[in-house]
C-alpha cells in the first residue's frame, strides 16, 4: 500500500526537485538581460572548474558548442527558461561563453537578409 507520502507525488505534482533549487533559490540572472533568441556559444579552450559548477552548467556548455539560442537550450534541457537564464548568466560571469544579442529587425544591417529568409522559406 502506498504511503500517504507517495500518493501525492504523481506526475501532476511536477518535479520533486523544485526547479529553482538548481539555482539555490535565485530567481534572477545577473547582468544584462538574456533574450529568448540570444545566441550562446561556449568559448573554446576555456577551462570550467568542476568544483565551481553544477552538472547542469556543463550540460549548457555541451549544448552551446555551436551557437544555440537561450530558448533552444531551455527546450533541450527541459528546464524552465528562468532557471536556464540563471545557469547561462553564471557561465557568462565566469567568461566561459560568448553571447550574441539578437539584432532588432529595424536595425538589420541589410534588408537582403529578409529576402534570403523569404527565398529560404520558399525552398522548404
Amino acid at each position, binding site marked *: 500500500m502506498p504511503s500517504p507520502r507517495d500518493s501525492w507525488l504523481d506526475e501532476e505534482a511536477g518535479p520533486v526537485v523544485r526547479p529553482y533549487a538548481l539555482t539555490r533559490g535565485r530567481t534572477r540572472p545577473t547582468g544584462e538581460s538574456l533574450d529568448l533568441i540570444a545566441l550562446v556559444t561556449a568559448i573554446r579552450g576555456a577551462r570550467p572548474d568542476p568544483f565551481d559548477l553544477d552538472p547542469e552548467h556543463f550540460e549548457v556548455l555541451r549544448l552551446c558548442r555551436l551557437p544555440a539560442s537561450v530558448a533552444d537550450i531551455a527546450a533541450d534541457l527541459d528546464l524552465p527558461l528562468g532557471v536556464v537564464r540563471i545557469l547561462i548568466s553564471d557561465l557568462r560571469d565566469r567568461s566561459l561563453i560568448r553571447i550574441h544579442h539578437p539584432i532588432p529587425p529595424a536595425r538589420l544591417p541589410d534588408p537582403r*537578409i529578409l529576402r534570403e529568409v523569404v527565398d529560404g522559406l520558399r525552398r522548404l
Partner: protein
Amino acid sequence: MAYAGSERADGPAGVPVAIKILIAGGFGVGKTTLVGSVTEIRPLRTEEPLSEPGTHLDNIHGAERKTTTTVALDFGRITIRDNLVIYLFGTPGQERFWFMWDELARGALGAIVLADTRRLADCFPSVDYFERRDMPFIVAVNCFDGARRYRADDVRSALDLDPEVPVVMCDARQPASGRDVLIALVEHALELLAGRAAPVPAQ
C-alpha cells in the same frame, strides 16, 4: 557535417542572425498546429515568478518566492542556412499569461494572428496588442473543415484592420500553407521596414 561552416559564427564576419516570429490568436485556434506544420515543435517551459505590486522580494536567504506559475510555449526553429535561423513562438492563449507577451514581442520581426471565423472576437486582443506596439502583423484565417468561408475583406472589416494589414487564408495543418503564411509575414515586414527607411532618397 555542418560543423565546419558553423564555426563562422565565432568570427566577426559571420555574426549569426536570429529572427523571431510570434504566432498569436485565441485559445484553440490552431497555433500549435501551425507551428507544428512548418517545424518540429519543442515545448518550452517557463516557471515565472509572479511579482505582485508591493510585494517585497528578498532572495538573500535563498528563499523561493511562493507565487510562481508555469507557462508552456510552443517553440520551433527553421534553419535557413548557417547563421540564419527563424524562431517561432506560439503565444500563450489564456489571458492570465499576458505578462509573457512583452518578453516574447521584444525584438520580434512580426506576428501572425491566427483567426477562426467562428470565433473572430477571440483574436481582438492579439490584433490590439500588435497595433499598439506598432509591430508588423498579418491575420491568417485558419479555414477549419465545416467553417463557413468568408472573404478576406469581410474578415478585414470585421476586425477593423488597417488597409495595409494582409489577411490570408490558410490551413494550419498543411506545411505548404503554414509556410506561405510565414512568407506573407516576412514580405509584409520587409515592406514596412523599407517604407520606414524611405525618407532618405536613393541616389
